[in-house]
């Protein structure tokens, strides 16, 4: 418990229709994440990591049980309310960066702020600050296709962090990166976690990422196998 519970998963089950039957991706999951945690869901493919992250990110909802994010029950949110939750409080970092190809680095990072109707001058300040956090202020005018993999993922981090959300969800952020870039982006995220108090939630099966996590939740076949707290375990 650092600063109180920010995510509370209670008896969450998620089933998907497959053909005429069903596939159970999550089985009666119970988890609690505290504000400022740097935690990861770890497990092999199909273990339910991404499904759980999608529910926490309000992109999906549980079939059974309750997922409370910042006190809001994901199952009970309307499309508009869940969009507002994502827009203001949750940042996403994806495996393939998902940068908008026709926008510049600056515009990609600015996007979430545009949705919040933040005035231009303030937006500019916030975008440049976020780009400085990830060391890409000089590349603000570049298009995503001119960036390397590591740079692309750092833009995605800046985009997720620019609105200073309470939670950042990173789904396999290192899957397309080499070791050096993986360490670089993890260091950046760790610094942001420590400086801004943002809760980071990863899904990964990358050992390098695991090395940075304070807490590792091991998932297997949709169930929590082990919830491992690793205090002050950081690499530099």
């Amino acid at each position, binding site marked *: 418990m650092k600063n109180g519970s920010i995510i509370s998963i209670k008896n969450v089950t998620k089933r998907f229709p497959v053909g005429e039957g069903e596939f159970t991706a999550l089985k009666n999951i119970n988890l609690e994440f505290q504000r400022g945690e740097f935690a990861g869901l770890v497990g092999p493919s199909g273990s339910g990591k991404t499904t759980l992250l*999608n529910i926490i*990110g309000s*992109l*999906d909802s549980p079939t059974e049980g309750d997922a409370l994010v910042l006190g809001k029950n994901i199952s009970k949110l309307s*499309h*508009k309310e869940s*969009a*507002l939750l*994502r*827009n*203001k409080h949750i940042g*996403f970092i*994806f495996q*393939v960066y*998902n940068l*908008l*190809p*026709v*926008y510049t680095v600056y*515009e990609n990072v600015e*996007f*979430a702020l*545009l*949705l*919040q109707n933040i005035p231009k001058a303030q937006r500019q300040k916030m975008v440049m600050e976020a780009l400085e956090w990830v060391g890409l202020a000089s590349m603000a005018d570049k298009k995503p296709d001119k960036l390397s993999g590591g740079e692309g993922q750092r833009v995605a981090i800046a*985009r997720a962090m620019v609105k200073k959300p309470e939670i950042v969800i990173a789904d396999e952020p290192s899957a397309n990166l080499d070791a050096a870039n993986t360490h670089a982006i993890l260091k950046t995220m760790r610094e942001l976690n420590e400086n801004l108090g943002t809760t980071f939630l990863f899904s990964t099966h990358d050992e390098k990422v695991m090395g940075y996590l304070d807490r590792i939740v091991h998932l297997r076949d949709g169930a929590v196998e082990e919830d491992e707290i690793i205090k002050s375990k950081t690499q530099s």
Partner: protein
Amino acid sequence: MKLAFQLAYKNLVGAGLRTWLNVGVLAFSFIIIIFYNGLIDGWNEQAKYDSIAWEYGNGQLLHTEYDPFDPFTILDGHGVLENEQSKNLTPILLRQASIYPEGRMLSVALKGIDANQTTLELPTASLKNSTAKIPAMMGRNMADAANLKKGDEILLRWRDQGGTFDAAKITVAEIFETNVPTVDGGQIWIPISKMWEMTGLENHATYYVANENFQPKNISDWKYKSQEVLLSDLNEIIAMKKISGSIMYLLLLAIALLAIFDTQVLSVFRRQKEIGTYISLGMTRSQVVGLFTVEGSMYSIFAMILGSIVGIPLFAYLAKIGIGMPQASRDMGIPLAERIFPVFGIQLIVGTILLVVIAATIVSFLPARKISKMNPVLALKGKLQ
């Protein structure tokens, strides 16, 4: 909404060639629709103006037994108006006759007209000033058909009031140029005073043409047809022409809209990850639908700009110099000038813009609706839905 326009603009400009191909086709549609309607409107204006100036005046007072569409009514369809009643009216007496150019017989409508009239643009002063015994004038088409030129004498045969055939030589005093075929083809104009002498129908007229001072009133044996009524046939012909022409440009517009529809369907299919990203960044589904719809309708806005750049100078030039009409078109029986000056009215332009923008918005919205049912998780993975 402002955000949707900003994002749509970036997305379209960023899409490059695909955008400009759609915009090009749509701009071409804009130009064709406006050009074609402008041409028809120009023709309409010119045809109405010429018909009024050369034939209809401010309306016509026809003898009740005369039907312009039934030649058998010519014989008895005439009468006399009292002097007071014929004020502001130009009398025209119509009889059937024959001429014999180069030894062949040609049936004509012989029309007697007051040589002093100023209501119609028919150059009747040439009849008044001619020293010939029976001066006659005719339109260029009639003169060409009979191979006649100014100064020629030609034998005319007609029937008098009692039905007896009579004949005399007439002199071509004037050949006039007109766009109105109904005062030209198959017609010979002579002074009405001569016609009264020739037929014995003193002071008779088949119909009268009113000038702008004429006040319509009920007169026994005569029926008044207003300018609007007389122009209704012409309006119907032009409306038909407009409808038949619209099929062509609607097809063109349909091709352009199909291109937008196709692009939108492809966009929704190909840009699923992008749609998922928008949703994950906090856009509502209706905002994403709005964005894609605005993108589609923005094609029409770009097309309007491109169409204006190309179209405005082109239309201004055409409105100034007019468009030459082939001779074959002038033989259709409706007033058609050698050159038609298209009229590009604000109503036409605004109407066309609204038509294209609304149509483009609708065809963009239809495929974009699918987004509202999309699962954002699957969209982020780019999976088919």
